[in-house]
């Protein structure tokens, strides 16, 4: 992971980073109208006069979106403003129906919080406190598809606009400048966004499906020569995956360091992140001249949450992910690294649910982190997308305990369940995966094997017990793997009158 170029940056410079994260809330309807927020609808089918910005239409605030924002603010240890307002951010862009975005400006709903994030280093875990400047509400824009050229904005001859996404509620979480991270800056950035995502999921305010673009980051980076005051920052827009967050910080640190070393100034500007190359490129300089002309949104009135409302919302907060992780890590007795892997795989909830359904903690972890992670990797999907349920695992585990399934057979059962062949019972019967436990047929198979390999029988009788493997193997083969090997071995010794 470390590169010489990056090491050189750290030798000379101290990075300061900042993150602005936009996350789509999982409400039923848009921020200011009753249109559905469902992802993937046919273009321009979730639209109305309000979210198309038609003349005369007026916004009306979604209560659930406000509550979600307050809950997020509380979970981020913010103060909830007793009085907050929406403002208009004015600029022309065809994905924005009104040519202004309803957002919050100088009166956000939540201010001054923090989020502790853990980064695993060679010297063990390190906790960084990321201070939160504000959490506010705003609306998403429509989706542009660029026509002509290569499907990118550059070289396009025209664009097409789908306003289904326009007006979907977003919360924007803005950090204060994060200093003192040194070479860990990219990791801290990634850990912060990961933690934010976990928090949103735990609160149930968003399922944060990054592949659908429901979380987007703007990454601010500046460098100062060690010991000097802060440098000029750049803002890299639309960094849309956890990996990209890390890469964007890293490449921007390297780029800035190279410029500074060459005696150039850093231009305060907006930069674009290229997901394919991992590089950032300069945005249009004209954007610097943009003047958003913010003013209070006159179509809406202030949001002034009462103490009672805030307390009520506070009671709905779940256990905060970091607290929960610490608890589980202790109960399960696993390492920081193992816990980090579980979190990364998104397996924590699944394992906990599986344990709740009556499966041993060890078995639950074994299945999710072993077999299921492997399948999810192969399929390129998330663990949650596998059709296997905690109760399936409990059923299979109890069949293993009763000797009706072997480990190998159990894997085959799950393979079938995940392939959509039916329930655990259906897969067992369809694939014929029952352990052959009928003594008579097993004894017959053993006798047959002994008859075919008389020399082996003699070896065993003479005390070379390890020779039993050949007979057990033959029996397993004869029963197509559906016998319990230990049982076969027991029966064999019994038959030969040997005690182990």
């Amino acid at each position: 992971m470390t590169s010489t170029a990056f090491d050189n940056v750290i030798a000379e410079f101290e990075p300061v980073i900042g993150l602005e994260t936009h996350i789509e809330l999982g409400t039923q309807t848009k921020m200011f109208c009753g249109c559905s927020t469902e992802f993937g609808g046919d273009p321009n089918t979730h639209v109305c006069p309000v979210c198309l910005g038609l003349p005369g239409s007026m916004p009306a605030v979604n209560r659930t979106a406000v509550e979600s924002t307050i809950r997020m603010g509380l979970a981020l240890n913010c103060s909830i403003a007793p009085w907050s307002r929406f403002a208009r951010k004015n600029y022309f862009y065809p994905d924005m129906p009104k040519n202004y975005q309803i957002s919050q400006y100088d009166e956000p709903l939540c201010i001054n919080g923090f989020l502790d994030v853990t980064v695993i280093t060679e010297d063990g875990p390190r906790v960084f406190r990321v201070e939160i400047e504000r959490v506010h509400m705003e609306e998403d824009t429509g989706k542009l598809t660029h026509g002509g050229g290569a499907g990118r904005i550059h070289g396009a001859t025209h664009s097409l606009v789908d306003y289904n996404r326009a007006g979907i509620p977003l919360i924007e979480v803005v950090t204060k400048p994060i200093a003192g991270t040194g070479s860990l800056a990219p990791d801290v950035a990634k850990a912060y966004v990961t933690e934010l995502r976990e928090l949103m999921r735990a609160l149930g305010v968003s399922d944060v499906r990054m592949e659908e673009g429901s979380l987007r980051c703007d990454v601010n980076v500046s460098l100062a020569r060690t010991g000097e005051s802060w440098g000029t920052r750049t803002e890299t827009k639309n960094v849309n995956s956890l990996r990209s967050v890390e890469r964007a910080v890293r490449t921007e640190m390297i780029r800035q360091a190279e410029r500074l070393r060459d005696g150039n100034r850093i231009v305060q500007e907006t930069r674009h992140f290229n997901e394919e190359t991992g590089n950032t490129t300069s945005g249009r300089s004209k954007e610097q001249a943009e003047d958003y002309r913010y003013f209070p949104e006159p179509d809406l009135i202030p949001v002034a949450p009462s103490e009672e409302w805030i307390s009520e919302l506070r009671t709905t907060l779940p256990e905060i992910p970091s607290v929960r992780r610490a608890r589980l890590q202790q109960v399960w007795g696993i390492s920081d690294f193992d816990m980090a892997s579980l979190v990364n795989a998104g397996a924590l909830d699944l394992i906990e649910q599986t344990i709740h359904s009556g499966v041993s903690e060890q078995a639950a972890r074994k299945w999710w982190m072993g077999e299921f992670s492997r399948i999810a990797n192969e399929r390129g999907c998330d663990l949650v997308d596998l059709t296997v349920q905690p109760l399936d695992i409990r059923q299979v585990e109890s069949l293993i305990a009763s000797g009706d399934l072997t480990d190998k057979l159990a894997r085959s059962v799950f393979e079938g369940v995940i392939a959509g062949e039916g329930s655990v019972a259906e897969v067992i019967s369809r694939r014929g995966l029952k352990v052959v436990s009928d003594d008579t047929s097993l004894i017959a198979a053993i006798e047959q094997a002994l008859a075919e390999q008389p020399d082996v029988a003699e070896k065993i009788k003479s005390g070379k017990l390890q020779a039993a493997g050949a007979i057990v193997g033959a029996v397993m083969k004869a029963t197509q793997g559906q016998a319990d090997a230990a049982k076969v071995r027991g029966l064999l010794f019994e038959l030969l009158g040997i005690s182990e």
Partner: protein
Amino acid sequence: MSSIDREQVVHLGRLARLELSESEVTHYTEQLDQILGAIAAISEVAAEDIPPTSHPIPMTNVFRDDIPTPGLDRSVVAEGAPAWEDDRFLVPRILDEPA
């Protein structure tokens, strides 16, 4: 208060997406200057400790329940559009450089 010059008028025209002709720039420079001059008196009112009023009737916390309501038929949406293609609004190229 500062008076307004041609350069500012050109900049404002750009911000407001108005393609002003040379004569319009001259015209608006004069008129804006005149109007701003006439209303300059408002800055003389000492109002440091006066809270601003952005909404004449004091109200707070008006919300809508998060319940979906039917939107518009796409055919109706398409009918109103100046240009439409592939179920979407067609707009000219976004970047300024020629295609």
